């Protein structure tokens, strides 16, 4: 009879048992994530080597690829040339800014997929001010106007889905996604009007953010660095951050202690949108001085993944952004040198993100293989 039960039991238990883990020690979790990143780099290297072998065999060695990446991203720092480095930091800054902007919304479990649109519309606000007011008011006045308008535009783009989420529980993922395309079309419209047939708006002379220490990018980098610290403090040490956390963890608890959940959702999305607007403004008023429909270039989507992979911690996000941008730009350079298509960089980013997303499984769950010995009924 005991045999019957054992048979049933062994039939019932699958070969692999998956169980939810209690919290994993943080360093173990980071070892797992490190392994995932390493795995993705190995996959990427392997692909690069194979492809280089086909098109430019002289590039088909790990050391050459690594050197190309390094030169492609950082340039010749040791020779005192920092041009490439600044460009890299600027790219990191813009992506980081968007990821930072998304973080409070994500912490609240509001899936803001609209960073792209919120940033674009912020940049749009800046461009409109530059064109309409440029030359009519002094730059000293124009720049504050640009800042305010960009922030407002971004905030409105975040506010619209938020009110519907708060009052009707409208699906925010799809709503914010659609808002991206509306923003794109508005800009396409404006570019046609202002750019005429050429489909481009020429870089504007007025309303450019001042250059810090004669460096085109330094101001943006400094602002985003400040934002990183501010966001960290906001989320961790401010009352707002605390409310966001409670609402995200349990709306029931939030109500129990008397938090106005609707208010928090709307306020947080305004902040999220506003910061995306800042990102767009930095890009437009700070560096590009013009706008295209693809000014943000999909970074709004990459930012979603950065924020999520950075565990909503601004400082981890800095590292993640640095890594992703390094691989993206570095591989772009490798692809260039090997006469490969530059979209190779996108594939690399995709692989890295998928590996890191997938590895979270091993952080959250433990996998046990069933031993082959017969269990004796306890």
């Amino acid at each position: 009879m005991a045999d019957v039960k054992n048979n049933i039991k062994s039939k019932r238990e699958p070969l692999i048992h998956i169980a939810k883990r209690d919290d994993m020690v943080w360093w173990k979790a980071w070892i797992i994530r490190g392994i995932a990143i390493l795995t993705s780099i190995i996959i990427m290297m392997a692909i690069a080597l194979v492809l280089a072998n086909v098109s430019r065999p002289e590039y088909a060695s790990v050391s050459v690829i690594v050197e190309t990446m390094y030169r492609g991203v950082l340039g010749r720092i040791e020779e005192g040339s920092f041009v490439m480095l600044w460009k890299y930091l600027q790219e990191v800054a813009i992506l980081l800014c968007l990821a930072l902007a998304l973080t409070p919304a994500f912490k609240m479990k509001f899936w803001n997929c609209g960073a792209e649109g919120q940033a674009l519309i912020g940049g749009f606000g800046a461009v409109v001010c530059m064109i309409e007011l440029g030359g009519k008011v002094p730059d000293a006045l124009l720049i504050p106007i640009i800042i305010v308008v960009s922030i407002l535009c971004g905030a409105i783009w975040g506010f619209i889905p938020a009110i519907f989420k708060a009052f009707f529980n409208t699906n925010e993922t799809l709503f914010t996604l659609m808002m991206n395309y509306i923003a794109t079309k508005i800009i396409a419209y404006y570019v046609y009007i202002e750019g005429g047939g050429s489909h481009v708006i020429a870089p504007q002379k007025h309303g450019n953010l001042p250059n810090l220490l004669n460096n085109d990018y330094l101001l943006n980098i400094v602002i985003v660095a400040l934002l990183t610290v501010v966001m960290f403090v906001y989320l961790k040490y401010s009352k707002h951050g605390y409310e966001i956390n409670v609402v995200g963890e349990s709306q029931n608890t939030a109500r129990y202690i008397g938090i106005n959940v609707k208010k928090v959702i709307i306020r947080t999305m305004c902040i999220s949108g506003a910061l995306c607007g800042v990102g767009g403004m930095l890009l437009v008023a700070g560096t590009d001085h013009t706008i295209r429909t693809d000014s943000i270039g999909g970074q709004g989507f990459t930012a979603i993944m950065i924020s999520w992979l950075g565990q909503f911690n601004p400082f981890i996000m800095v590292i993640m952004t640095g890594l992703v941008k390094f691989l993206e730009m570095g591989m772009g350079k490798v692809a260039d040198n090997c006469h490969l298509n530059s979209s190779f960089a996108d594939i690399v980013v995709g692989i890295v993100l998928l590996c890191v997303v997938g590895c979270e499984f091993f952080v959250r769950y433990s996998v046990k293989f069933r031993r082959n010995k017969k269990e004796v009924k306890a």
Partner: protein
Amino acid sequence: MASQPAIELKNITKRFGKVVANKNVNLTVNRGEILSILGENGSGKTTLMNMISGIYFPDEGSIYVNGEEVVIASPKDAFTYNIGMIHQHFKLVDVFSAAENIVLGIKDGKYNLKKSTERIKQISEQYGFEIDPEKKIYTMSVSEKQTVEIIKVLYRGADILILDEPTAVLTPQETSKLFNILRRMRDDGKSIIIITHKLHEVLSLSDKVAVLRKGEYVGTVNTAETNEAELTEMMVGKKVDLNIFRSEPCSDEVRLSVKGITCVDRQGTVVLDDISFDVKAGEILGIAGIAGSGQRELLEAVAGLQKLNSGEITYNNPNTGNADNLRDKTPMQIRNLGVRLSFVPEDRLGMGLVGNMDIVDNMMLRSYSKGKTVFLERTGPRYLALKIINDLEVVTPGASTPVRRLSGGNVQKVLVGREIASSPTVLMVAYPVRGLDINSSYLIYNLLNEQKEKGVAVIFVGEDLDVLIELCDRIMVIGSGKITGTVDARTTTKEEIGLLMTKSDYKGEMNNG
């Protein structure tokens, strides 16, 4: 045929860790018989039934179906032995029609909803169900959903039906309808096991009654040969002396006064029906009742979390002397009135605390908005956290451990500690010792007594009658959202409360066998 056993349990024991949920249970149900399983909350009724329906596997003992020993390792196995269970929480897809839900997962030839509908209608006629197979679940009342669950089981050809507290969610009329159907099924030769803790239902419906108490099997009696008093005694047991210290109430001042509150939930069920009571400063008012009789809604109404249809909640503020109306105010507004109201809800990690936050941050839930800056002030909460860990002997690696990782007793200490720390004038606690070991339980009792001596009006919702009798000053009993009686805890007996708990307006079929 009547005496042929359909299902027998012999010496069934089930443990969950250290807790023994069922110990040496023996049961027999014959064909064409209704057996009631009677017991208080937590007496192990549902665990026992889950073992018959294949959700749990017994640690010891054996199960016989139609005289043969069987192994029931999964719900599927239960189906093959024609056992069907109707759970308390329905497993239905809301946007599907009744028929779609009933046929879900069955593999019997070609999919033909029309044919299935015919069979559903046939089953309904046979037993007297009233159901529209095309009606969507989300438009249905609770009793209709239950009907769907029962037909689902019958459709799969079940001969042995287990119903887990089927009447908890039904109106008296619906209950009587259900009982008629169950009797018809019995006459048809089906065996029915019904879990309940309502005495009158047991007496009116079943042929035999099996009683469980704290996981132990007390015995089986024939319904015809028993009465309410005997069953109550079997169910609640002899009085146990717990030696909880109890001081005399120290004041006559009414702190909180509730008048005629009524509350109707979203489904249209009346969950609170004209409830009125006073709580004095420095007394512990116990609230007894079957789980789900409106206790939660009552406390949430006072805390400002439940919309009321009528009635008044008045708080007599000892500092200002004002009588403030708390009805329709949010928790924040209540706090801003200067009302020091603390609430330890039943759902500790889902409402009272945030599982993923650490102890310090959980301390701040009540107080985070204090202070004029936009920043949080963590020094006070950290000090409080350490104080609670120290005073209440919370076992934790540290103050920055997420509370989700603490054991049940320690979670409760953190929650009660926080609620008491704000020096309340009214303290409401719901099932504060559920799942706690003896030591932690006594610690909580002592804390409540301390508060009482300080002049706090304490409302204690509990389930263990021994504790209620020894801890409280007065005990208010509610049943189906109504007050069925208020007794003096110093003079009452468990039987008296037990009878009040199971009393309700429904007496129509008491003697109908």
